[in-house]
């Protein structure tokens, strides 16, 4: 698929940048034009995502073969010859998707589109806000489509800066603290990833097509082939000390993003301070990058260590699930509660991944998508009430079901989806993750199921405190949810319901790739 001679993945990645440039040229007063430009850019992106969804070939494997990748675009980007010590630096502009990335691409497009509408009433500096939002969008999309580690890292970092400003300028009262914490914490992770990336670069060589001389490469697919590791280099061999170190560095880098206990404390602060749309993006897409990175990079490049450390991953997964749920239960702030519930739900993704079998892996990737949509709904819901009442204290409300019935209706869908009710999407991915995990880790999975009860408890408790009971006099005049807000919530609710009833819509896209990924990891040497 190409438009104007440029591949669809480039379009979907850089459309927001085009929107951003346009917005920068729009005069300050014309706020509506800016909003609609942003909406148009993200809408086109969503249209492309839908086209990709229908165009996608469900049978191809992807993961470690270039033939299995789809919509591939590859061009030489940076090529410097004659550099002292190591000769030649070569970076490709290499994009492509497979069954692992396609759900994330669709999710990113969907969430970004909705985020624009959720930002409709930004009070100050709209131009800067929309520009940053679109830049962020490009960064996120780029991470999911790039197959060159260097390019991946560039996009990974591109995302960081707009996020810092979006929280730091348009956030709540403690925005500066939250923004700095988010930035520094994530940067720490990035540095670890950078180190691992450089170590990988100096270990992997591929023959140059033209001359046949072996040259270092950032190509991720090349890094997944053990034969490409040059003997005697840092990361050559199996289960060496340096490989352990690189794996752990990568793991911590991604763990900060997920976030995995104990690297999670930036998340509640960032969420609480960020404006609604940014929380939606943060929870909806950014957290997925951590688990995506683990699956795309750590697993296939270090299969023996993925096997070796799988129990540790399962352990932190269980901690995430239980600990996140417990912390959520004790919160007074609605948004913080949802933030902790994210930690708990991301634990399910980790548990599914750790299982290293097809059910678990499918559960994990599906849960990544489902958590994206469900948590986005939850944050939008908090945003609706915060816009009206300017408080998020759970005990300040009560009886909203009577005064705001439509709002309560859509909220119920989101809450029950989050607590894993069958018929809504969260259940399928949870069940798959547990089914997979139980085959590998019996006791840990049984402990993790405790999370199911805890989640039900805090979700229903919240629901009761905010929505049930006698209406609070103070909020009797709150208007019910309006058309724009419904427009942001209903599409997500439809997706949640559709995937709850017929998950194959998405599962079919990823089955072959994830099966292959499991094979790749399982066939890696066992320590």
């Amino acid at each position: 698929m190409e438009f104007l001679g440029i591949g669809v993945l480039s379009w979907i990645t850089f459309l927001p940048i085009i929107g951003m440039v346009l917005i920068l040229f729009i005069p300050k007063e014309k706020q509506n034009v800016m909003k609609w430009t942003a909406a148009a850019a993200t809408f086109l992106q969503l249209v492309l995502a839908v086209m990709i969804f229908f165009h996608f070939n469900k049978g191809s494997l992807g993961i470690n073969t270039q033939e299995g990748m789809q919509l591939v675009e590859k061009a030489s980007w940076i090529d410097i010859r004659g550099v002292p010590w190591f000769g030649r630096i070569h970076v490709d502009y290499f994009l492509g998707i497979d069954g692992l990335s396609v759900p994330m691409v669709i999710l990113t497009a969907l969430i970004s589109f909705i985020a624009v509408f959720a930002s409709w009433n930004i009070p100050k500096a709209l131009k800067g806000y929309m520009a940053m939002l679109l830049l962020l969008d490009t960064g996120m999309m780029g991470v999911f489509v790039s197959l060159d580690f260097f390019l991946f890292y560039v996009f990974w970092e591109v995302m960081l800066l707009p996020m810092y400003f979006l929280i730091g300028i348009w956030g709540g009262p403690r925005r500066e603290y939250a923004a700095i914490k988010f930035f520094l914490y994530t940067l720490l992770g990035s540095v670890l990833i950078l180190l691992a990336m450089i170590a990988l670069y100096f270990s992997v060589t591929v023959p140059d097509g033209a001359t046949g001389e072996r040259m270092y490469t950032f190509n991720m697919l090349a890094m997944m082939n053990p034969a490409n590791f040059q003997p005697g280099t840092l990361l050559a061999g199996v289960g060496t000390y340096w490989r352990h170190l690189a794996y752990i560095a990568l793991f911590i880098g991604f763990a900060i993003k997920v976030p995995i206990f104990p690297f999670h404390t930036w998340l509640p602060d960032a969420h609480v301070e960020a404006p609604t749309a940014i929380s939606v993006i943060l929870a909806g897409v950014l957290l997925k990058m951590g688990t995506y990175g683990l699956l795309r990079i750590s697993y296939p490049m270090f299969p023996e260590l993925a096997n070796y450390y799988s129990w540790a991953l399962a352990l932190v997964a269980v901690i995430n699930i239980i600990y996140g749920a417990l912390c959520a239960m004790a919160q007074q702030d609605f948004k913080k509660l949802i933030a902790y519930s994210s930690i708990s739900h991301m634990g399910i993704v980790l548990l599914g991944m750790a299982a290293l079998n097809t059910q678990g892996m499918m559960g994990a990737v599906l849960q990544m998508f489902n958590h994206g949509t469900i948590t986005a709904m939850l944050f939008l819901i908090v945003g609706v009430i915060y816009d009206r009442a300017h408080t998020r204290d759970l005990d300040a409300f009560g009886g909203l079901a009577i005064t705001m019935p439509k709002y309560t209706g859509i909220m119920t869908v989101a809450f029950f989806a989050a607590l894993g009710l069958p018929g809504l999407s969260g259940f399928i991915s949870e069940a798959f993750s547990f089914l997979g995990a139980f085959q590998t880790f019996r006791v840990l999975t049984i402990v993790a199921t405790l999370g199911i009860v805890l989640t039900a408890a805090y979700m229903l408790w919240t629901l009761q405190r905010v929505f049930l009971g006698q209406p609070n006099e103070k909020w009797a005049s709150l208007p019910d949810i309006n058309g724009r807000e419904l427009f942001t919530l209903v599409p997500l609710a439809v997706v949640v319901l559709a995937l709850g009833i017929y998950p194959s819509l998405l599962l079919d896209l990823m089955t072959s790739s994830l099966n292959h990924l499991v094979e790749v990891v399982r066939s890696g040497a066992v320590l």
Partner: protein
Amino acid sequence: MMLVVYIVSAFVHLFSIGYMHGDVRYGRYFAFLGVFTFSMLGIVVTNNFFMMYVAWELVGLSSYLLIGHWFERQSASDAAKKAFIVNRIGDVGMFIGILILYTTFHTFTFETIFESMKAGVIPFGSEAWLTAAGILVFCGAIGKSAQFPLHVWLPDAMEGPTPVSALIHAATMVAAGVYLIARTFPMMTADALMVIAIIGAITAFIAATIAIAQNDIKKVLAYSTISQLGYMVMGLGVGAFTAGFFHLTTHAMFKAGLFLGSGSVIHAMHHALHHSGDRKTDAQDIRNMGGLKSKMPLTFWTFVMFTLAISGVPFTSGFLSKDEILAGTLAYANLTGRWYIPVIGFFVAGLTAFYMFRVVILTFLGDHKDNHRYDAIHESPKTMTIPLIVFAILSFFAFFSLNPFSATSGWVYSALPRPESVVPASVAAAGIEEFETSVHHSHLLAMVLSLSVAGIGILMAFVTYYWKKIDADVVAAKTGPLYRFLLNKWKFDELYGATVVAGTVGIAKLARWFDNRIVDGIVNGVGSWTKGLTLGTKRNWVENSISAIFYMIVTAGISLYVGWVVGFGLLPAEASLGAIVGYVILGIAVSGFTFFLFYVGVGGFDNSIVDGLVNATAYFAGFLGLLTRRLQTGKVQTYLAFAILGVMILFLWFR
């Protein structure tokens, strides 16, 4: 089972049209009712565990929505939440059971699982796991069928509209648990069945004792339901498969009838109270009723019919099914020697007859309590009485067996034979034939015993509440603590509130504290230490606080450690005394330097030392300049003297 769901649901819908008339959320109520019926049917028609679990949870959802129908009331929303969460605890057990089965058999289908089990495949090759899987699946039933120890949600669930109580909490939803046991019966080992029987017996006993002391008509019925469910579960547990399931069917009919009957009474009471402008009197308290017989004849006679059925009086459906269960318990005791099961069974049968007749007498017989209110009471509309009449007719024996004294010849028994067990013979319960023979032997004994306990129960009820030979209040007063214990439902709510609920909330608060103080404290600590390294801890020392002391200790510790490492690290293995002293001094110096570095910070260090050295150099140069300037006197003699001095020095140097 499908028949039960359909019949009861249809009539509940019909009944609700009258009962819910004028409700604020009339439309929503019927929508939820529809969801409920859908999910119940889902449980019944599915052939695999996964869909069963899906429908199972959806039933939980619809009951949550229906119980919380009047969510403005705190008690209603509490009850709904409690029902969902308590059920979920059971469901998680069931889910783990399903996980075990799936991991072993890689399928969810009942038939396939049972077939492989018959072929000798058992979970993880261990019989203990098989038993565990059985008990875990049974956990789902404990939740849904309100068995001990998860029975606490059911009485509270009476906060929902009465037709919902009839539908969910008497006939269908709670029966789902029994259905589940019946479905999975073939995979239950003897040990699993024993657990089931014991849980059933405990439930039946506890609930019956609580029912005696309750005054709210719906509460009595709720506990009676729990008790009867315990009966069914016990029946299945002892191996009386058909009897247990049969009781489910008959009970569904007469208990739905009882609930709808009570709904009719409450509806009338509400109406009358509303009429007389009385807002204080509880419309559901049987102490406020009495003598309603003549005012509501249809409700009364149907109610009596249901009561006879639940008490196990001959010619009713309840007699048939109850009798079979009791015979089954006797047979079980015969085979296994666990005599406590039938003892509890018969005792509960007596209690049931007693408390049900207590309700009938207090509600319909005797004197009315308030003339004004009494006059305003009317029979309920036809949409409410027709379901009652239908259920009453269905409570006759003839619909289930033509022989009023034995159900075994009826259609239920031929339609529902006990399935073959598929578990390995070494852990299986007594076989069908062995069990049937034993049942046959104890049948007559069971019938005589059950008739006599039911008779005694009914007689006691009349003696106490109708003829008032025994004063119930006096009995209550004399057995004070016991009575209050029963009235307060064995204090289960208090116990769970103090342990499970408070414990969880407490741990949650602890987790929050840990997260804020420790985990995030470390993160912020790293931040402020990095900052401190640049700015120095000097600032923190001024505040006279704990953190200042903390800073001091940590800085001192780090400094000493650095000094130690440097001093002793460099110390050669065989050093002279002087060298040792030298290295010690070096260590102390390094340690002092580190401490100083922390104290003033890298920034401070840069300011005071590095920059200080630079400044000092400049200062020194300036000082030299000042000194030498003095020499520039401008006199030739002075310069000459200096030149001679220089030559002399050179001469001395190169001498």
